[in-house]
C-alpha cells in the first residue's frame, strides 16, 4: 500500500462496500476493526436470499462499535454511520448526498445491486469515495467499481485467495486493476486509517 499516493488524493467522505455469498462474516471482520467515533459514513449492499424482513442492521448494530441503520429513502447521510441497504430495494446516493430507494429491475439478478449503489455514489462523491468489493458468487460490483475509479475514487478488492467465494472479487479484478488488493484485515486497517 502506498501511503504517499494516499495523502495526495482527495479526502474520503464516504465508503461503499458490496458483498454477497460469505458477506456477513466478511463485513463483520472488516467493520469490527473500526473504533467508536469513526467519522466516515459507510454504505453497504449485501445480497441476501429473497426475504423482505432482514434483521441485518440489528445484527451488525449489536456487534459493531459504530452506529448502524437500515438505509431509508430521502435520508441525509450522517458521518460515521453504517447504512445497510434494505432487501428488495436498490439503494442510491443522490446528487445532494441523500439516499434514495428504488424498485427498478434487479441488476445481475440482485436487488439491491452493488453496481447501482457504486455508480450513483461515484456520481455524488466523485474522487471523495472509497469503494470495496468483497466475497461473492456473482459479477455484481465490477462495473460499479470501474465507475468509481473513472470518477477518481479509490478502489479496493478483497484478495480472491482469501475470499470465501472468489467470483465477485475476480470479476472486479478482470474488469480493472484496483488501487488495492487486500485481505479483510488489511481493508479494515485501511478504513480505520481514513481521515
Amino acid at each position: 500500500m502506498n501511503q504517499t499516493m494516499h495523502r495526495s488524493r482527495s479526502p474520503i467522505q464516504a465508503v461503499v462496500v458490496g458483498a454477497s455469498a460469505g458477506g456477513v462474516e466478511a463485513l463483520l471482520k472488516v467493520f469490527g476493526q473500526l473504533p467508536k467515533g469513526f467519522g466516515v459514513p459507510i454504505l453497504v449492499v449485501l445480497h441476501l436470499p429473497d426475504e423482505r424482513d432482514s434483521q441485518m442492521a440489528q445484527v451488525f448494530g449489536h456487534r459493531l462499535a459504530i452506529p448502524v441503520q437500515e438505509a431509508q429513502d430521502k435520508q441525509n447521510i450522517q458521518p460515521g454511520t453504517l447504512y445497510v441497504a434494505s432487501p428488495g430495494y436498490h439503494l442510491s446516493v443522490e446528487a445532494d448526498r441523500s439516499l434514495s430507494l428504488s424498485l427498478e429491475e434487479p441488476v445481475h439478478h440482485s436487488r439491491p445491486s452493488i453496481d447501482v449503489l457504486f455508480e450513483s455514489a461515484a456520481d455524488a462523491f466523485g474522487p471523495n469515495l472509497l469503494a470495496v468489493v468483497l466475497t461473492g458468487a456473482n459479477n455484481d460490483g465490477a462495473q460499479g467499481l470501474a465507475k468509481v475509479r473513472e470518477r477518481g475514487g479509490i478502489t479496493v478488492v478483497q484478495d480472491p485467495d482469501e475470499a470465501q467465494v472468489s467470483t465477485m472479487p475476480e470479476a472486479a479484478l478482470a474488469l480493472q486493476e484496483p488501487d488495492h488488493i487486500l485481505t479483510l484485515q488489511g481493508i479494515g486497517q485501511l478504513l480505520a486509517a481514513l481521515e
Partner: protein
Amino acid sequence: MERNTDIEIRLLIDAIYLKYSYDFRDYSGASIKRRVQHALSQFECKTISALQERVLHDPGMFMQLLQLLTIPVSEMFRDPSHFLAIREEVVPLLKTYPSIKIWIAGCSTGEEVYSLAILLREEGLLDRTLIYATDINPRSLEKAKQGIFSLENVRAYTQNYQRAGGRRSFADYYTAAYDYAMFDKTLRENVTFADHSLATDSVFSETQLISCRNVLIYFNKKLQDRAFGLFHESLCHRGFLVLGSKETLDFSSFGKQFEPLVKQERIYRKL
C-alpha cells in the same frame, strides 16, 4: 463544471416538460439517470441529445420512452402484512363512514386497485366505496382497466392474498384463460381510472383513504412534499394515508401533520 450526461438529462427532461407537459424535473436523479441510460440502449441512440431529438419530433417515441421512465413493477397484495393491517386496523374505522372515497395515487397497472377492491368486498364495504385510481401513464391505466394479469404471477399473488388475511379462495375472483387471469369485472364497478400527475395536477375530491405505494421513492424531497400536500388537502379529518413499506413521512415537513396508526406498515392518519 457539469458533466455532459447531466446537462443532457436536464435538457431531455425540460424538452419533455415543454412539449408533452410530463414533469420529471423533480424526480430522484439517480433513478432517472439509469432509466435514461437504459432507454439509450433500448432505442439505439448514441447520445441523450439524439434521444431528445427523436422524442421531441415524434410523440409515439415519447410514449415509448414514458414506459421506461415510469416503473410499472407491482404485485397484488404486495407486502401481505400491510394489507392485513389495513383489514384489521383501518377497516373497522372505515366502516363508520356512510360512504367512502379512496384515492390510489400512482396505480400503475392496477394490481393495488384489485387488491383493495377484493379486501373491501370481503369486508362488505365495496358497494359504498368509490375508488379513484390515477396514474400518469395512459398505457398503464389501460392495462389497469382491463384487469388481466399473467397466470404465472397470479400464483404468487395467491400466496400474498392468503397471508394478507384473505377469506375465500383467490380463484373466486378471476377466470383463467390460456396464460391469463381475467379479474371479476364487478370489482371495478366503482373504480374511476383517471390521468393525474402528482407533479402538476391538484386535488379533485375529498377522500377518506389514500394509498400511494412505491411512488414517492422516485420523487425528490420537494416533489414528495408537494404530493404530501395534495394528500393532506384531499383527506378528511382523521383520514388514512398508506405508503410503501420503505416510504416514510419522517423526513418531510408534513411529518407533523400525520400520526402513525401502524408505523411498521406505513399506515398514517391525518391530524
